[in-house]
């Protein structure tokens, strides 16, 4: 306790130096905390949001990945058969069939290319349309259409307008139907706003796909994707392709690459924070070489001097890292609530995943602990490495600052 009091007094003695050292540690740890929260947010954006749109488990035809790029609906599955097979799954799973297709949306003489999706009622909450619809309402009838904000703007649409959807059926025959606009939605990814939703039953009629869907999605709150996949594979056989969310399209790439990227960033942020703190602590010890000599001349043992400096380093590390985590965490938590909109910048990456273009930094316990640990360990380690050679020298050498 006596040594602790001396250490605190020492730190107070040169307030300017102590303050500057603390600022360096705080800034380094703040950067690390926020940076890692950002990466975690990106991971969440790419993986979790993608998972919401692809389902935890997705069932399609075997050639769907290839054909769906050209929005070829001839790659489709028997809805009733898959639905019946899915009855064997636990009751707490949510299941929806969807049809994704391409077409032209006509209003008067104007037309726009757009992606369309035929959805079931329960998809309103799964896709998040209950939040994204800003005018009008969700689909209530088969002759209604929900239109994205970009399409609304380009075609100058109003709720209640009757638009025509022209598309190619599964047999490549042109067909069109009229729909009344029930509402408009706005998602954060502008590309997603150039799309529309109609009911699954209506899409099946429009595309001449009675009792067919292009994909059947299964959602679960529990981490039992593998179990669900195995059950469905056993039920459906080789004609169908059953995939876990992290085996689908860009989800697969991201789920493989993101942990590596995250690891690299942890290393970079830890090194940056560590080097900054070490540099500051080295300078602080270097400045006090004369003081070390005086303490030794006054009879203080090497171990005691080392402990005193380590204690000072630890106090600085704990308080700096604490303040840094608090500052970086506060920013991360704030931006985690409001989000950072990258809109069009992320569009190219996210359109395939069908997810939003907003990054919400995410502060986790792991990031908090890691940042505190890096701040503390690097402070103590740097102090130890700086002090040890000095305390081993003769007092006279220390006092002559050699």
């Amino acid at each position, binding site marked *: 306790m006596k040594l602790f009091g001396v250490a605190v007094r020492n730190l107070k003695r040169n307030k300017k130096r102590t303050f500057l050292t603390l600022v360096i540690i705080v800034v380094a740890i703040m950067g690390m905390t926020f940076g890692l929260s950002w990466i975690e947010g990106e991971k969440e954006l790419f993986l979790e949001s993608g998972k919401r749109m692809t389902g935890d488990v997705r069932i399609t035809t075997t050639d769907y990945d290839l054909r769906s790029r050209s929005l070829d609906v001839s790659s489709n599955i028997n809805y009733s058969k898959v639905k019946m097979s899915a009855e064997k799954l636990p009751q707490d799973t949510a299941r929806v069939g969807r049809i994704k297709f391409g077409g032209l949306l*006509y209003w008067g003489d104007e037309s726009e290319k757009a992606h369309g999706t035929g959805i079931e009622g329960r998809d309103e909450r799964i896709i998040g349309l209950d939040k994204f619809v800003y005018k009008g309402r969700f689909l209530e009838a088969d002759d209604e259409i929900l239109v994205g904000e970009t399409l609304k703007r380009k075609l100058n649409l109003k709720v209640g307008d009757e638009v*025509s959807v*022209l598309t190619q*059926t599964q*047999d*490549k*025959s*042109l*067909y*069109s*139907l*009229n729909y009344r606009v029930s509402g408009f939605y706005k998602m954060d990814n502008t590309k997603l706003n150039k799309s529309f939703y109609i009911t699954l039953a209506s899409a099946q009629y429009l595309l*001449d796909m009675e009792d067919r869907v292009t994909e059947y999605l299964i959602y679960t709150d529990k981490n039992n994707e593998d179990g669900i996949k195995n059950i469905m594979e056993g039920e459906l056989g080789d004609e169908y392709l059953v995939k876990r969310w992290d085996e689908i399209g860009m989800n697969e790439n991201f789920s493989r690459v993101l942990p590596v990227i995250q690891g690299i960033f942890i290393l970079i942020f830890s090194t940056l924070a560590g080097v900054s703190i070490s540099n500051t602590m080295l300078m602080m010890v270097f400045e006090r070489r004369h003081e070390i000599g005086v303490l030794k001349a006054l009879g203080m043992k090497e171990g005691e001097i080392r402990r005193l400096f380590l204690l000072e380093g630890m106090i600085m590390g704990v308080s700096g890292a604490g303040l840094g985590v608090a500052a970086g965490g506060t920013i991360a938590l704030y931006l985690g609530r409001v989000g950072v909109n990258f809109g069009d910048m992320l569009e190219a990456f996210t359109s395939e995943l069908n997810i939003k273009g907003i990054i919400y930094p995410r502060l986790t316990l792991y990031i908090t602990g890691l940042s505190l640990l890096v701040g503390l360990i690097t402070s103590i380690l740097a102090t130890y490495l700086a002090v040890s050679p000095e305390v081993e020298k003769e007092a006279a050498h220390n006092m002559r600052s050699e």
Partner: protein
Amino acid sequence: MGKTPSIFIECFEKNYLSFIRSVCSLVLVFTVTGAVFSMSPEEILNRVDYNMTPDSVSYEGEMIIHRGKREHTKKFIMDAMGAEKSFIEFTYPARDRGTKYLRNNKNLWIYMPSTSRTLKISGHMLKESMMGSDISYDDQTDRNKYNLIYEGEMLSEDSEHYVLELIRRDGEEAKYYRQLLWIVKENFTIQRGEMYGNSGKMLKELFVDEVEKIGDRYYITRFRIDDKLKADSYTELIMRDIKIDPRISESTFTLKNLERR
């Protein structure tokens, strides 16, 4: 120089008149067969064109589309005049009833009764599938004569068929770059055809199943087209109640008629 054939000497010695008769018979046979052999690809195609592209035609068509195990039937009525004017109205199934196609020159308009909309299709879109069949808009509505847009060359012939290779003439806009046609000698109708794209890839294959003599023409009344780019897919087309050179009003081939409900 070789020896004089002994058969001639024998004939000469035995009966001079008989020899003259034999020579005349041989000359006659060679003349007749020579006349057939000498029929040029252009002449053959002229005969084919005469059979297949009368000045005007109308018929009821039945399209049977085969996709794997599935089979769809669509019915329509068609009026055509000249090389590039045709009007098609689908009558079956209920989903497609009232869908109309108007071809005029290089443009095609589609009227969709479900939305009361008319769409214009041109350029490469004409090569797209018509009503989900293996027959393209161009296949069904273009009535240009072979001789005008293709340069023919005789590849081979047997006792029943001429096999012609047709290459698109420079500057012409033909449906296919190259075609191989098996033409029946007896009536100058196509029995089989292979259609190739610019890349040399076979795009479609045609098999004629039935031909009917209407007036002095032999008209194909049932054929089958396989789209080689689609797996397990072919379309049969059956034509009934065929009228050759009927009087069709010019007003049939107008947008007003297309959009008439």
